[in-house]
């Protein structure tokens, strides 16, 4: 498979994504500079974490106008798999590829630590290797991760099973204490109605090898590869 990792000015998790897909999962990886106008030939697209354009104005607000984003939009509309991690999730929201918006963490702190998330929908291309209700330990690292959607949007996310991950306790209880940033309904990740675009705040690429003490994140990235193999 050929996995595309988009590189914006200020991306800083792009090489981690490249490393996991290439060296851990054995796939080809193409780094796609944000000025590219085409993403043809790619089997999936990753929008990595970081601080694209220095988070100026709002997180993701300027990156969404990068030339490559037009191509990513078309790619997503045609059913291509797009995964946005952290800043990548913020960019997908600003681009309108996913509904809702990000607010500052309600503690105002930049939070960098492991959290637990519950897999609410194991039927997406990004969670196929997970069990429904499974708890994954994955680190977050963000200041703007408080997910917000208006009540109508929130209800439709729920009704269509678009809430894919929710912050929870280590034993899988979705509680206020387990919510690190104030996100609506403990939301940590959502997909679009078609299920081919996923945004998530936790960083699966940072915990994809047992030598690092945790490989829960590997399941998410490996799910993408497995889905692509089935497609062929």
């Amino acid at each position, binding site marked *: 498979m050929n996995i595309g990792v988009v590189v914006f000015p200020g991306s800083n998790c792009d090489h981690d994504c490249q490393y996991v897909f290439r060296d851990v999962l054995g796939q080809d990886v193409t780094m796609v500079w944000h000025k590219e106008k085409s993403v043809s030939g790619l089997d999936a697209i990753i929008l990595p974490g970081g601080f694209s354009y220095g988070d100026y*104005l*709002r997180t993701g*607000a*300027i990156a969404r*106008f990068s030339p490559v984003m037009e191509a990513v939009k078309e790619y997503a509309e045609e059913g291509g798999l797009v995964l946005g991690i952290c800043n990548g999730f913020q960019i997908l929201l*600003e681009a309108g590829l996913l509904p*809702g*918006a990000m*607010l*500052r*963490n*309600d*503690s*105002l702190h930049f939070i960098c630590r492991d959290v637990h998330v519950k897999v609410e929908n194991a039927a997406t291309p990004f969670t196929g290797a997970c069990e429904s209700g499974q708890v994954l330990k994955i680190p977050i690292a963000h200041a703007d991760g*408080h997910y*917000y*959607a*208006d009540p109508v949007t929130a209800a439709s996310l729920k009704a269509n099973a678009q809430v894919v991950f929710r912050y929870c306790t280590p034993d899988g209880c979705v509680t206020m204490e387990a919510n690190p940033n*104030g996100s609506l309904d403990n939301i940590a990740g959502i997909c679009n109605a078609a299920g081919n675009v996923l945004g998530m705040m936790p960083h699966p690429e940072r915990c994809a090898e047992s030598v690092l003490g945790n490989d829960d994140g590997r399941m998410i990235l490996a799910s993408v590869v497995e889905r692509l193999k089935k497609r062929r």
Partner: protein
Amino acid sequence: MKAKIHVTLKQGILDPQGKAIEHALETLGFKNAANVRVGKYLELDLDERDRAKAEVEVKSMCEKLLANTIIEEYRFELT
């Protein structure tokens, strides 16, 4: 023409920065201050003499980039 643009979080959306500032003001003894909301102020020069056209242009800038209308509202003046 100069555009002066204010972008703030919509009413009803939690503004933790505003809350933190409100507490700080209270600590300083400004007991009368309440409901602090933090926003952004932008100003820009516009090469346009027609006021109506300038309004349309600035509104479009706000809708497309300067504000995220899911969470923010904006207002501007032209001088």
